[in-house]
């Protein structure tokens, strides 16, 4: 026992898990997996300081810890709250959380153009998934949406600010992966915009990663724009000997052609390794790569034969009519899909 490291026990929606001290609630939930993982639009485990901004991962801490069992007074951002021993967290088993999350999704969508039919991100868009799972069927917003001109960031990346949800992930990429900081936020409030300071083109070997981290279609690959819908392309893991990055990528095939190269993403949509611009934009011949195997895609992903997500609620929901009501939309959708 003595050599065992200290573990904190945290219970999320009634499911216990033992995690290392310092783990965030979100990462603890990811260790459990399934429906109880809070969605995250701005948190990115590989980017230091990210998270806390989008508020989609709000959860209720119903018991602070074993020592101090008081509940936390407000909902907390699970990506930036570390676990305590004996903590009890409610995510989808708290009607309050489900309602707050629905509110956040509504806020994120009021200024979003909802141009999914012409957006390259459609099919692998986090906001689409989030809206599908938690959003309302109709908007209550009746005013004009904010609009911006499209901006080219260098010759390979396009910024379509209308779609941006200001998650700051690309700002962290520009800060942490590249050595020239020309990328940041201008203005304030709902006029904020991502900008390369006064539209200076970003010429940097790793800046292409902003495309991979963008949860929506605000930053897109100009070498792939409008070439194809993602669900018509087939992802294949491949690697090559690259002098500047790990060279481990996913190739997106249509027939025999490589249409696009991206980093390899895990089940939470985060890349395993950041890749360089040469791999991403300039290496699109099969002969450049050593193919491994077809990429494992989540079964709920539209990329995998149009399957949508079944909601499998934890047993506590079945017994409690209040919780059933809070999750009515998800339950009804699952019912419909059967």
């Amino acid at each position, binding site marked *: 026992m003595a050599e065992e490291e200290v573990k904190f026990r945290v219970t999320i929606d009634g499911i216990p898990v033992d995690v290392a001290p310092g783990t965030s609630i979100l990462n603890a939930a990811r260790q459990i997996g399934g429906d109880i993982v809070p969605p995250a639009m701005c948190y990115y485990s590989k980017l230091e300081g990210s*998270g*806390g*901004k*989008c*508020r*989609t991962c*709000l959860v209720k801490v119903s018991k602070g810890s074993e020592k101090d069992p008081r509940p936390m007074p*407000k*909902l907390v*951002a699970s990506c*930036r709250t570390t676990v305590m021993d004996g903590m009890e967290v409610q995510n989808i088993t708290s009607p309050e959380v489900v*309602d*707050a999350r629905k*509110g*956040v999704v*509504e*806020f*994120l969508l*009021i*200024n979003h153009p909802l141009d999914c039919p012409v957006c390259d991100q459609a099919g692998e868009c986090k906001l689409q998934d989030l809206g599908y799972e938690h959003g309302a069927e109709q908007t*209550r*917003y009746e*005013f004009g949406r904010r609009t911006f001109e499209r901006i080219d960031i260098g010759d390979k990346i396009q910024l379509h600010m209308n779609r941006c*949800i*200001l998650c*700051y992930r690309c700002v962290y990429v520009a800060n942490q992966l590249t050595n020239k900081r020309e990328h*940041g*936020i201008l*203005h*304030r*409030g*709902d*006029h*904020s915009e991502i900008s390369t300071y006064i539209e200076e083109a970003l010429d940097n070997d790793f800046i292409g990663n902003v495309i991979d981290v963008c949860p929506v279609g605000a930053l897109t690959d100009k070498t792939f724009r409008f070439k194809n819908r993602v669900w018509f392309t087939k992802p294949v893991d491949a690697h090559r000997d690259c002098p500047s990055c790990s060279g481990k990528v996913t190739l997106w095939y249509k027939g025999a052609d490589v249409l696009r190269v991206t980093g390899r993403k895990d089940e939470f949509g985060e890349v395993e390794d950041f890749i360089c611009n040469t791999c991403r934009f300039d290496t699109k011949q099969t002969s450049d790569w050593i193919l491994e195997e077809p990429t494992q895609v989540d079964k709920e992903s539209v990329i995998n034969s149009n399957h949508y997500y079944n909601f499998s609620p934890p047993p506590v929901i079945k017994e409690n009519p209040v919780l059933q009501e809070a999750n009515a939309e998800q339950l009804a959708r699952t019912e419909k899909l059967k």
Partner: protein
Amino acid sequence: MGRKLLLEHIDVPGINTFDVYRQQGGYRAVEKALKTMSPEDVVEEVKKSGLRGRGGAGFPTGMKWGFLAKPEGVPRYLVCNGDESEPGTFKDRYLMTHIPHILVEGMIVSSFALGANTSYIYIRGEMMPQIRIVEKAIAEAKAAGFLGKNILGTGYDLEIYVQPGGGAYICGEETALLESLEGKRGNPRIKPPFPAIAGLYGCPTVVNNVESIAATVPIINDGGEEYAKIGIERSTGTKLISASGNIIRPGVYEIDLGLPVEEFIYSDEYCGGIANSKKLKALVPGGSSVPILPANLISKTVNGNARLMTYESLADGGFATGSSMGSGGFIVFDEDQCIVRNTWNFARFYHHESCGQCSPCREGTGWMEKILHKIETGRGSIEDIDLLWDIQRRIEGNTICPLGDAAAWPVAAAIRHFRDEFEWHITHPQEALSRNYGLAHYADPIEPVV
């Protein structure tokens, strides 16, 4: 009545200069603290005084100082928050304009208590004259040996720097202020860690309001227990109130906490009553971000007790029938004022000042402003009121910093207490453009809307 601690010498000509301030007994607190007390004694006195933060949240200052981490070999900072931008609050500007030396004196005493050798006064960018006044006061104090190396021969070193802000309301939030002070974009940080652990440049930092820091001067001069005798229960000492609106004598008043609200509004010593013999309609007691109170809840709480100028009494009844002391921005509305227009004006302010970091505040404040503008200009529908309620409910408590709450509370309280007036605006769009609703039918406390 009318005891003055901070504004005692306000009418002395030339009190903004070092010599006159010194003649009136200024800098006694510095001498007393540095020569006869240890830093722990000063903290203890402030704890005994029961002083609560004057910036809005009302957190006990002594307790805040007690939380300051003191690791070896790491500098500690005191930052004075002079980014006063709340609509309706102008007490700090008044204090800095007329008696800048009480702030400098308070800064020296507080920095000594916290063991800080470098302190900053962050002043809102629009207050250029006040920035010059405070800078001049610091230079005078330094020339007289109250700042710099080895102050008064006690071996204590202190430098105070003034930093002008860029004029953003959000930089009044303490962590956004620290970001701004470090030269970054003024976005609030995600807490924890709190500034007491990792604040300015990652070092332990205390951020205090101008008035809180100034209040340490009388506390050290007279002793914390003497200070705690003023006021009622946990609201001790005196407070500067910025009175504005439809009153006969608007201005900054120093009051003993515990003064009845009714007396403050109607006494000739203070506001002098409602101007032009009009009737009182509503009151915002603590600056634009606190809930508005309708006339029937101003002089009495819902339980029938007299409402007093204390942190507890103003908040009595929670948000359903109470409000908050806030930063003391006392805004009085007479029967001719339009609550819808006023709420829209506040919402417009918060929309403009949201930093845009987290989604509920960034998107919600703009949405509320648009709906309120629509209602105000006669294009609203009844559903809009419920929609507004829904939006504010989903902003409140779900944001990184309290700006989201500050945007949500005034809208919530206006709808809670003045729903009739909102409905009238919607059902009588033409009439609403040409005249105001007048006094509302709120003789009985209205049940909170759920």
